[in-house]
């Protein structure tokens, strides 16, 4: 069973190859790319394509590697001890399983998403090296080793906020989602809105790529912004003509709030629009 582009997720050939290599060799796949280019959704699609349950682990700045394995809830135990609860004698009652454990113990092979790994402390990836390599770990409190029944397919996303250690990288396959070209983007739009008016889609994409062409933007709109914006345009049922400017003048597009989320960027656009209005007609 191979991963392929589907009606709902457009995967370029290089992404297909990278995913299938990671699945075949049972090594993690590290996915990077601009925000909103489908990194997180990829894991969902892989789990669907391969018919495997998805286990999601979303990383925050305070997340520790150990939490993915298990946590020993000493405080509960202390409390139970003070209250004279019987459970207190079995330390196993206070071992809280993490996402990795969940994936290791699942009866069926699963897809494990470690989302935004770069949010965590720089030691985080190193701390998971061995566990992801051997797919097993030792629980000190109960003196037991948890071994994966099946090696989960591990998909890791990063937004490049931190460098990942070399030793970690060596064990991964890597894919950088390049920003979709026009053709791919048309397919992505189709996949989300199969019955969008072709004319509207075309004009919207024109505007979208024009905006992305402005290098000074703080945050360039990505796939997710385009999709949000299109949805709004469809809900408002705006005619495609409003997106078309007669000459190549810059205008702030309708409902631009969905595309430009940064106040400075909106200002920048207003300024560009102003300048282009003042330019004499050619």
């Amino acid at each position: 069973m191979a991963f392929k582009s589907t009606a709902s997720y457009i995967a370029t050939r290089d992404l297909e190859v990278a995913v299938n290599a990671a699945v075949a060799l049972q090594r993690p796949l590290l996915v990077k790319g601009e925000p909103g280019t489908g990194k997180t959704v990829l894991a969902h699609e892989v789990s669907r394509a391969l018919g495997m349950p998805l286990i999601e682990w979303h990383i925050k700045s305070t997340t520790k590697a150990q939490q993915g394995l298990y946590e020993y809830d000493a405080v509960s135990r202390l409390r139970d001890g003070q209250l004279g609860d019987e459970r207190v004698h079995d330390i196993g009652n206070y071992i809280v399983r993490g996402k990795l454990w969940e994936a290791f113990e699942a009866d069926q092979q699963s897809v494990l998403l470690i989302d935004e790994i770069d949010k965590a402390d720089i030691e985080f990836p190193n701390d998971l090296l061995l566990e992801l390599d051997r797919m097993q770990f030792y629980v000190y409190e109960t003196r037991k080793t948890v071994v994966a029944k099946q090696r989960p397919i591990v998909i890791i996303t990063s937004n490049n906020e931190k460098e990942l250690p070399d030793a970690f990288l060596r064990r991964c396959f890597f894919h950088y989602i390049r920003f979709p070209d026009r053709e791919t983007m048309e397919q992505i739009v189709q996949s989300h809105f199969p019955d969008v008016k072709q004319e509207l889609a075309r004009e919207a994409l024109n505007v979208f790529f024009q905006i992305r062409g402005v290098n000074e933007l703080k945050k360039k709109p990505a796939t997710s912004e385009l999709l949000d914006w299109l949805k709004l345009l469809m809900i408002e049922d705006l005619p495609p003509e409003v997106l078309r400017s007669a000459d190549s003048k810059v205008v702030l597009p309708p409902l631009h709030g969905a595309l430009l989320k940064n106040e400075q960027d909106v200002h920048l656009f207003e300024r560009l629009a102003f300048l282009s209005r003042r330019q004499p007609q050619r």
Partner: protein
Amino acid sequence: MFATFILALRSAGLPTSVTEHLALLNAMRSGVCDYSVEDFYFLSRATLVKDERHLDRFDRVFAEVFKGLERPEGEDHELMQQLPEEWLRKLSEKILTDEEKQLIEAAGGFDKLMEMLRQRLAEQKGRHQGGSKWIGTAGTSPFGANGYNPEGVRIGQDKSRNRSAVKVWDKREFKDLDGDVELGTRTMKLALRRLRRFARQGAATELDIGGTIKATANNAGSLDLKMVAERHNAVKVLLLLDIGGSMDDHVRACEELFSAIRTEFKHLEHYYFHNCIYEKLWKNNRRRKDTETTTWDLLRTYGPDYKVIIVGDGAMAPYEIVNPGGSVEHWNEESGKVWMQRITRHFRRTAWLNPVPQDQWRYSASTGMLSEIMEARMFPLTLEGLDGLTRELAR
């Protein structure tokens, strides 16, 4: 062919390792991709490149090594066999990390590795005879390129020869992501961000004693532990700057770079030296005599946890490093090398930042010697260099 490819990647500065090399061979055997050159390109890229900044370099090497690949008349010779084994061995020894060497050792030594490679290649060949053209059909040997240089494989001759239709890798779509350009005003901000990130590492959590007492009291005496994020920046940096040479502007730029984020570090101290470090350093270049410190004092004052960054071009006469009395300014009883080694031994993390573009380092013998003393922890003053440096120091 593979070995050639991997070596070419490594000499182009891509840190591919034996682990990845073997992974690629395995992936190919597992048949995850079609036997087309394009799929091979995608597969090798996903296996061998781990950083988008290297994608463009990968594309260039790929284009060079595999050029003429699709030519139907391509003569079928195995590049691996053309290369003298001794030469390959030497080259590999030079570019492999210790970790990799151990890996090879574990697999039965280098001969074993070569044998493994050859065997796998043979398997590949037997299985897809005629079908796949990417093994052993290098149009031209990159090693035959005009002027082989002993430090590595020189790739890159006339690109237009043998060029057929534009291939994916020839489009160079990742060009903008390459981090290997000199620091300029445009990249300065990014450089600062990297240093800031470096300064802020190690945000651990610690027990909030006050909060715990309060929460426990509220809990009628049942313990309720409270944790808070550790706030302070723990990184201490000692900057040693070479002053009084052709690189002064760059050294200054570097100094400014660090002082711009001075407050982010727990401590940031700087000292100057000239060309090489000897028994004395000074704090103010204009009042050099008044601000001198002996290097011994420096070693006593700053603990091994200080991360030492030495900035300089490392270009001087070799005797300035190895000979007692070699200094151009004064009589030094002990050689620069001895002093350098004292520093690298005392401090746990030391690295050298060199403003000279990296491709010129090999023209200076002294740079090579210093790099050796630094155990290769010499980095160029580029974004990528800063990344390498901070990563090295953050270990």
